[in-house]
């Protein structure tokens, strides 16, 4: 789907939804209009649950608190002060401000570095419990358990409230859809998929999560403010974790990660609950509960994906055309002049001084000292378990080493997190291919470029500019023919190549490559090797490479460092190291000749 087509589809959807809201009061009875006004506001909060849970992957039970913040701000101001337009604006400001403050504190606690997803969920569960207790202890000020009622509010008709609530919901839903489909919105999925990779692509994931959380808090607070204005009653249950959990259930029922699903799910369930509680006051909750269980068992993805699949399937069998992933993004090479970056300074690009890494009593690295200049291609070889990957990790993440100093381009990395090390010019490729499994090749590459090309909050770029080196890797391995393929369908070697291209897209000055060509054929290895040599010689990158293929090492390195049992045992030119007795002893074994020898002697072991 082209970009203009997507935007016009969205606009048509917006108009249709607005028309439905506009016509609603003329088609529905008074009772339904009354109930649905509430449902429309609840749906806006369910939308925020879906943004956080369905897209960002944070299961949150506490969105009710932001709704209550807006509602109580209105209730408190209108009860304890006169109702004036100025005070109405003050109440909205207090509601939104209170929600923002709460969200900032909770976000800082839940999403700061090192906090796990489960920890974040627990905090969002604690939040409504604490909030409810605060409302209970507020005495006459908050109305304690009976809440606040009987305050004066806006003089708006019931239809007017319906249009206001509906208009608000349609607007935030449209904006949310526009955002999640945009280049910036894709970051949410990337963070959910693989937060580690995001950090090593230089993205501050904590800040991203908190920003989205704050925006969701504002939406919740405005919905709550409208609710208090229309219902003219606020109760502690609005902040409770029962409501918070119901929002999660509605989201799951409607279809997590679809935005529209949770909105429609909330409207149906809340409206039906009101109907049933009137008709069957004793068993309605049982009926609702059974339906929940049945839907979740039969359609684990929720209702909307199932409903949306029906026309898609009909359409497909009608056209007899298999759904082929098509990349809507064209790749182009960045002008090399723009990617050169600052000229490499005189000092070493990378200096490692006395670095050690201990896990309890186990010392994995000890007294590691070396410096590498820009333009050097240093291979790190050593037996399995010598500490090569640990050393890579220490250079790319300031929190990893136990002692010592690491300087990148003249900057001491101190205790900086990975994303800050990326900002200093470090690019790291992991040992096991580390990409975004559900995103396509083109999308993975786009996310790698986010640091350089700020993504649009509502548009999708049709063109992706990549540095020459990344383009070389993509063309060499044939990834350019698979731009629309989701990464999890790529072969192992292709994933390695994709990750390498992603890291090169960062335009690093110090490139850390942990077995970059594992899983590639000899021919592909040599092609990648040529690209690496070019990067080092022509573009002045400092490349540190872990490799086991000594032929490959000999071919491309300008220098080899041998690591053995956590220490540097040799550091010298390729010929000095590869032919040394030590390497033969601890590392190389008998080489290929040895294998052939064993092959020749296999009669002895075969019965």
């Amino acid at each position, binding site marked *: 789907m082209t970009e203009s087509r997507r935007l016009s589809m969205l606009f048509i959807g917006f108009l249709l939804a607005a028309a439905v809201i506009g016509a609603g009061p003329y088609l529905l009875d008074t009772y339904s209009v009354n109930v649905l006004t509430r449902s429309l506001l609840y749906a806006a909060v369910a939308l925020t649950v879906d943004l956080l849970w369905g897209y960002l992957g944070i299961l949150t039970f506490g969105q009710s608190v932001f709704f209550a913040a807006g509602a109580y701000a209105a209730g408190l101001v209108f009860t304890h002060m006169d109702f004036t337009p100025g005070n109405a604006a003050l109440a909205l400001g207090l509601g939104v401000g209170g929600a923002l403050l709460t969200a900032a504190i909770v976000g800082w606690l839940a999403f700061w570095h090192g906090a796990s997803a489960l920890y974040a969920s627990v905090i969002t569960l604690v939040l409504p419990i604490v909030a409810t207790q605060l409302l209970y202890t507020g005495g006459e000020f908050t109305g304690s358990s009976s809440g606040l009622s009987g305050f004066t509010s806006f003089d708006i008709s019931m239809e007017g409230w319906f249009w206001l609530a509906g208009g608000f919901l349609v607007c935030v839903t449209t904006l949310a859809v526009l955002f999640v489909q945009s280049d910036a919105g894709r970051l949410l999925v990337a963070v959910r998929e693989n937060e580690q990779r995001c950090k090593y692509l230089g993205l501050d994931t904590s800040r991203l999560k908190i920003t989205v959380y704050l925006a969701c808090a504002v939406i919740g607070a405005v919905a709550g403010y409208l609710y208090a204005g229309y219902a003219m009653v606020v109760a502690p249950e609005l902040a409770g974790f029962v409501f918070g959990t119901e929002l999660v259930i509605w989201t799951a029922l409607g279809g997590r990660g679809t935005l529209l699903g949770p909105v429609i799910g909330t409207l149906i369930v809340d409206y039906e609950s009101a109907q049933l509680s009137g008709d069957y006051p004793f068993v309605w909750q049982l009926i609702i509960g059974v339906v929940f269980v049945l839907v979740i068992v039969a359609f684990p993805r929720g209702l909307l994906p199932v409903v949306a699949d029906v026309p898609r399937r009909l359409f497909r069998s009608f056209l007899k055309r298999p759904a082929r992933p098509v990349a809507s993004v064209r790749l182009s090479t960045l002008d090399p002049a723009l990617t050169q970056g600052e000229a490499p300074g005189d000092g070493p690009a990378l200096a490692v001084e006395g670095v050690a890494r201990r896990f309890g009593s186990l010392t994995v690295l000890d007294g590691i000292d070396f410096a590498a200049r820009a333009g050097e291609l240093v291979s790190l070889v050593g037996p399995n*378990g010598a500490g090569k990957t640990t050393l890579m990790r220490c250079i790319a993440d300031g929190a990893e080493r136990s002692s010592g100093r690491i300087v990148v381009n003249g900057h001491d990395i101190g205790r900086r997190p990975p994303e800050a090390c990326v900002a200093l010019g470090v690019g790291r490729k992991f040992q096991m291919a580390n990409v975004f499994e559900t995103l396509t090749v083109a999308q993975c590459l786009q996310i790698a470029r986010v640091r350089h090309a700020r993504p649009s909050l509502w548009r999708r770029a049709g063109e992706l500019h990549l540095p020459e080196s990344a383009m070389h890797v993509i063309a060499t391995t044939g990834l350019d023919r698979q731009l629309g393929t989701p990464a999890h369908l790529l072969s192992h070697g292709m994933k390695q190549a994709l990750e390498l291209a992603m890291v090169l897209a960062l335009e690093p000055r110090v490139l850390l490559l942990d077995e970059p060509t594992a899983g590639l054929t000899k021919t592909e290895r040599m092609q990648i090797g040529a690209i690496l040599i070019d990067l080092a010689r022509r573009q002045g990158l400092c490349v540190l490479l872990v490799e086991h293929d000594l032929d490959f090492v000999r071919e491309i390195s300008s220098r080899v460092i041998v690591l053995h049992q956590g220490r540097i045992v040799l550091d010298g030119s390729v010929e000095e190291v590869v032919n040394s007795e030590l390497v033969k002893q601890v590392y190389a*074994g008998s080489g290929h000749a040895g294998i052939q020898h064993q092959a020749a002697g296999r009669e002895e*072991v075969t019965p």
Partner: protein
Amino acid sequence: MTAPATNPPASANDTPALAVENLSSGYAGAVVVREVSLALQPGEIRAVLGKNGMGKSTLLKAVMGFLPKMGGVVRFEGTDATRLPPHRIARLGIGYVAQEKALFQDLTVEENLRLAVRAPDFAAALAEVETAFPFLLKRLRQRAGTLSGGEQKMLLMARALATGARLLLVDEITEGLQPSVIDRLAGVIRDARARHGTTMLLVEQHLPFALAVADRWAVLDRGEFADAGATTEPDAHARILRHLSV
């Protein structure tokens, strides 16, 4: 050049250990492996080579039941395993050494071994591990996730051998291993076959290793076997290289 002694132990009957007939498999609409057939005699080691994305790993995953079979039949020692789920296939005596995410990272080395070994005699399994990679016995209490990448590969292979599986499907075991360990691994695999008659299907990128270990080789190209032969043929190396470099 044919050396009779290098052939796998002949079995009494002619039932292949693994028979794959016209197997097709792939992902969501994309056929990756097309009507592939192969038969492994008991005790035979076969190496499957090929460029990236040609369907080597897909073949193993389809045999193991991790990917749907779009057509074809898989028989293990004469038993139809085409429609069985992976855990039932494993119980038939097939071990799978996957390329990625195959260890329980948060469990110790010993726990990883205990989970895989179904036989009551764990001591015998440990003895098998010791024969293959003795250093693992000193690391039994270490979390598998804290082993280095290469050490994890060694644990993976040792675990597969310790289960006593009669057929092993091995996906690029040499990746990330230092040369001397690859040497050792070749010996370990030949030795295990000699003692237990284990049949093996190896997917490999490391050509010298594949030729040293296997009895026969086959090259997979775009989901179909493009060439095959005995590893003892003098031109095997050159023929495979030709396929890999086109």
